[in-house]
């Protein structure tokens, strides 16, 4: 019997890990479809960002109440992984609570602490469910989330509650069995929470208790393995990607816009043609700006997979606030959806085969792109160091430079700058009129 259990566990575990790693490889491949960008300078500053933004959740604390609840859920998630390590070892080795012999009297203290976290996770998730579904905060009722994204968020919260409840049930049954002196159930001493819950189960038979304990154990670990495989399809992937995303976050001032060396060079040659001879010609025709996901940089694509769809960006976006179609959260969700679509295309065909679609237009409209004031509120608010603005600006570059598509007022502004050196149609000679007036 024991050997069957061990075998079943090993099979379930291997299948889960295999499926997960396959999907992870696909995501990695998808991200690397993006343009190259070197983000490895200043490792010291980058590690600092990982500590502050990812571990420390610095941006979350812009809203302290939510930050504390989120911190419980997050800490619970990270720390309970230690517990899961024990479960996995027990599952493979056919042991029961293998860490007791290693940790001794520390063991119940540790499990007790996990139990407190489990309760806090349940509490946090419950409040989050209420906020999402009953209080209906503006950023959660937005139509960006219609359909799958809204259920996704709820599934995650409900799953966490279920997993934690299973964990607590399993421990309570275990504690009761320990009280009865069952040989298989190693004596650990009371756990902080389930130690006091154990009497609730005193009326149950040994068989029922073992059933509850084993059932809790199996469902808990199978749930965790299923959740692991659900992660890559969900906004919940941020629990992993928030870390690399913080490391690769931009270190430049937010106001700075990325330079385009290809255009710089072309204009340089135009202004100083004498340089042309000494310069090697660039290979191929350069693309200006981004039309599809593969034109964006890999960091933009990593951003897309890291987005938690929390909508803090859109809640702060002046365009979104005043009813324009632009929603920076939607920009990120669109980028991810399109990238997943391209990924599926590659899975099916070996390489990307033109599907007649692009991120621009099939997902993101010109109207959305036009409405951005480049105010950086979205970048400022994002707890996961994402820049929706960067994507918006690259798509705008494509519109203007590759398609000459700009509102007529902008076309006028461009030609004014070109001809009058100012965005308005004024004579260059009048530029210092104010000074002449002062000089009189």
């Amino acid at each position, binding site marked *: 019997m024991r050997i069957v259990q061990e075998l079943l566990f090993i099979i379930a575990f291997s299948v889960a890990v295999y499926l997960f790693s396959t999907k992870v490889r696909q995501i990695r491949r998808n991200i690397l479809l993006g343009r190259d960008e070197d983000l490895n300078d200043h490792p010291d500053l980058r590690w600092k960002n990982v500590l502050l933004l990812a571990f420390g959740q610095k941006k979350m604390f812009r809203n302290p109440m939510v930050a504390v609840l989120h911190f419980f859920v997050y800490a619970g998630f990270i720390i309970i992984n230690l517990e899961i390590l024990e479960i996995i070892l027990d599952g493979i080795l056919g042991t029961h609570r293998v860490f007791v012999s290693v940790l001794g009297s520390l063991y119940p203290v540790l499990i007790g602490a996990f139990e407190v976290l489990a309760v806090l996770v349940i509490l946090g998730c419950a409040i989050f469910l209420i906020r999402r579904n009953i209080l209906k905060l503006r950023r959660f009722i937005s139509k960006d989330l219609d359909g799958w994204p809204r259920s996704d968020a709820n599934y995650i919260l409900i799953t966490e509650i279920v997993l934690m409840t299973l964990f607590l049930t399993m421990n309570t049954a275990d504690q009761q069995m320990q009280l009865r002196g069952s040989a298989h159930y190693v004596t650990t001493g009371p756990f902080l929470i389930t130690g006091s819950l154990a009497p609730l189960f005193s009326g149950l038979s040994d068989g029922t208790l073992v059933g509850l304990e084993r059932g809790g154990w199996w469902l808990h670990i199978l749930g965790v393995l299923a959740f692991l495989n659900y992660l890559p399809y969900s906004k919940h992937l941020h629990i992993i990607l928030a870390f690399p995303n913080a490391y690769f976050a931009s270190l430049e001032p937010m106001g700075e816009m990325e330079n385009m060396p290809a255009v710089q060079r072309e204009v340089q040659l135009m202004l100083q043609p004498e340089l042309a001879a000494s310069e090697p010609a660039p290979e191929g025709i350069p693309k200006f700006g981004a039309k599809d996901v593969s034109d964006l940089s890999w960091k933009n694509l990593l951003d897309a997979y890291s987005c938690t769809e929390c909508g803090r960006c859109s809640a702060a976006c002046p365009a979104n606030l005043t*009813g324009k179609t632009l929603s920076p959260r939607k920009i990120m969700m669109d980028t991810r959806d399109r990238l997943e679509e391209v990924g599926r295309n590659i899975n099916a065909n070996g390489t990307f085969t033109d599907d007649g679609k692009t991120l621009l237009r099939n997902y993101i409209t010109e109207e959305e792109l036009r409405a951005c*004031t480049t105010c*950086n509120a979205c970048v*400022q608010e994002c707890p996961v160091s994402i820049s929706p603005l960067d994507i918006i*600006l690259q798509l705008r570059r494509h519109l203007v430079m590759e398609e000459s598509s700009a*509102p007529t007022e902008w076309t006028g502004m461009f030609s004014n*700058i070109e001809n009058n050196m100012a965005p308005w149609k004024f004579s260059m*000679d009048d530029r210092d009129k104010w000074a002449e007036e002062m000089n009189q």
Partner: protein
Amino acid sequence: MQIKTMATYAANGETPEILFWVGCAGSFDQRAQKITKAFATILDKTGVQFAILGKEESCTGDPARRAGNEFIFQMMAQNNIQLLNMYGVKKIVTACPHCFNILKNEYPALGGNYEVIHHTTFLQSLIDEGKIRMKEGGAFKGKKITYHDSCYLGRGNNIYEAPRKVLETLDAELVEMKRCRSKGLCCGAGGAQMFKEEEKGNTRINFERGREAVDTGASVIAANCPFCMTMLTDGVKETGKEDEVKVLDIAELIAMNME
């Protein structure tokens, strides 16, 4: 007062302490010209030796770049950099956060390296050095002033305190809007929006911000950007409070109250 150009200085074989980068709005927009004049007056009164580029100045290329037209931006930027480098410019002060941001952060990649200072920071250093002294019981003593953080100074470049410190010298009561500092709300002009109609929505961004500013009960809205100036002025007009609530640049506020 005699405002000299870089060319004049160069002709005499001299270089001034700073270059005052006026910017297109500050040069051509009638309202913004007043900010330019106020700042020039302060520079003159405090004895800062400065020059302008005058007719040689061109648009920095900011609105073109943000709209997506990198070609026009590069043309403007490379010309400007050639000019600035030719004059050996080291230190630039500007009253426009867009010019400030682009000169400071984006010109270096093209070979233009200068110390660039926004006028609010420069005013603060003049105050700290004791060069600007305020009148006793100035025009704003005891009045309520609210300050609008421009995106390109605040979030864009993390400058939140210097403008507030300058305003403190007015002896006025500084009240904050609900959305301020890093949570500040855009005026609606950035990203080349100044040069086109807004997209369809429920309201305009500047109406939203104007209302928020008026709601503080302040009689003065202090701005640090000529574009915010235009947007906020329209926003205040929309609330019908243009007679009670004035939008003024920090430089204007200081110029009015200097000894």
